[in-house]
């Protein structure tokens, strides 16, 4: 009985998840009347805007990952090593982005950093890109912090630090040469998740008026019929790839550790 219900729940879920994927896959192949073809994909790939927005989002994702790592790794490390008291507060702040909707945060950006403010970031394209990167960093913050903090838990931060200090290493060396390599798996997991989030993000980029991949997809969706599902397939593949890479690093690391 239990097993029957279990199978029922699982099968229902699988059908619900697989249908939309099949739906978008099938629809994306129907551009040419009567036969399946990759015409929609060809159209998408021939569109220079696709490549431009895709590249733009990729660059921003990379920037977000760099900022996120530089921000999160030293902070999480410092909190574990020297400031356990600050832990609840830091954790609270890192979880805020799950509570405050992204649209509210970006609304605040627009009003706080507008051209008549002290820090007129939205006045220039570069400034806005910077702002968008910061916005993405906040979006990724909960995942990045948790991932790195969990990674730090598995190593003995205090002993590693003391050992390095006794050998004459400075803080920068300790962070870059000791701590970072030890939490590399966690950092990479966080990085791939960040990549997945940034590549599909719509709200912040649209409201800051930047030519990112998300708004491009939305625009195409409003005007075309067959390209959008093709884009959805591509986006799904990206997400899947990011998650797959995430699992791969985790598994490789386990393997490494088992060997050592």
């Amino acid at each position, binding site marked *: 009985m239990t097993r029957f219900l279990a*199978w029922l729940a*699982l099968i229902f879920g699988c059908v619900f998840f697989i249908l939309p994927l*099949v739906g978008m896959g099938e629809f994306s192949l129907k551009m040419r009347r009567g036969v399946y073809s990759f015409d929609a994909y060809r159209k998408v790939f021939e569109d220079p805007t696709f490549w431009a927005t895709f590249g733009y989002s990729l660059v921003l994702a990379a920037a977000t990952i760099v900022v996120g790592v530089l921000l999160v790794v030293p902070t999480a490390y410092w909190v574990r090593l020297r400031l356990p008291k600050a832990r609840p507060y830091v954790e609270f702040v890192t979880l805020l982005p799950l*509570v405050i*909707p992204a*649209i509210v945060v970006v609304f605040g950006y627009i009003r706080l950093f507008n051209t008549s403010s002290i820090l007129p970031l939205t006045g220039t394209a570069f400034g806005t890109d910077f702002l968008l990167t910061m916005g993405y960093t906040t979006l990724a913050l909960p995942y990045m912090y948790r991932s790195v903090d969990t990674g730090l838990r598995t190593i003995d931060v205090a002993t590693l630090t003391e050992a390095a200090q006794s050998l004459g290493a400075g803080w920068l060396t300790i962070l870059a040469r000791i701590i970072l390599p030890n939490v590399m798996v966690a950092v990479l997991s966080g990085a791939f998740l960040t990549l997945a989030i940034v590549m599909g993000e719509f709200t912040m980029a649209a409201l800051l008026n930047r030519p990112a991949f998300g708004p491009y997809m939305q625009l195409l969706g409003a005007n075309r019929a067959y390209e959008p*599902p093709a884009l959805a397939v591509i986006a799904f593949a990206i*997400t899947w790839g990011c998650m797959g890479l995430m699992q791969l690093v985790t598994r490789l690391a386990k393997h490494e550790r088992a060997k050592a």
Partner: protein
Amino acid sequence: MARTRQGLIQRLPLNWLGLVPFAVFALLFLILPTLKIVIGAFQGPEGGFTFQNMLDLNTASIRSAYWTSIKLSVITALLGGTVGFAMAAAVVFGGLPKAVRGPLLTFSGVASNFAGVPLAFAFIATLGPVGLVTIWLKTNFGINLRAMGWNLLSFWGLVVTYLFFQIPLMILIITPALDGLKKEWREAAAVLGATGAQYWRMVALPILFPSLLGTFALLFANAFGAVATAFALTGPQLNIVPIKLFAQIRGDVLGNPNLGYALAFGMILITAAANTLYIWLRVRAERWLK
């Protein structure tokens, strides 16, 4: 000289300096922008303090937007939570082959992140007017979904679409909690004469309660703040708060910038309330787990 310097450094709360970069970042890009909204919600056009913006929220259109948003978030959180719980429980306790678990969790990781614009496209291609399932049902069974009142670009269409990321999110978060239920508790309850239902009611659910509640709050906030999926699916016409706010930010459709602040402040208020409720109940429920 060197000694006094050392002493000075020791007296200064130097440890806290390590948090400065993070604090500056959080302040500039998370806290101050939010505060700007909160303060703006209570400012008049000339900058003075006023409750007028909050009072102005009380229009039929805005009321209905909030109501629809709350309904949408509660329903998708409840449905997604229930189905996700059932699937996670099926994998953890249901006696399914072990091989099911890994792929399901991996897939959940992907699906919970597959939100926004492409998700809307996937559902349009499936349940839209000329979607795969719609056409299939019509040609093979003569079932006309549209005639039966189905419309993907509506409230319930949005519910079904949101479930695509709500269910996997639930699975991801609740599976570790279910793993934490010890086999011995179930066995001890059975030996003491408890039925399966009694075990769930008196032991398992109370233990899971904080996690269930936390996940519900998260799912609620997740749906409440989502813009992209709804926007790509229905465009600007569906009357939910995030879409309204989106339109307001783009073009001041309310005709009053400070009303926009109030609208956003309302969103913060609701997600904050959901999370406060969660934290409060969690503390109560976890007396036995310090």
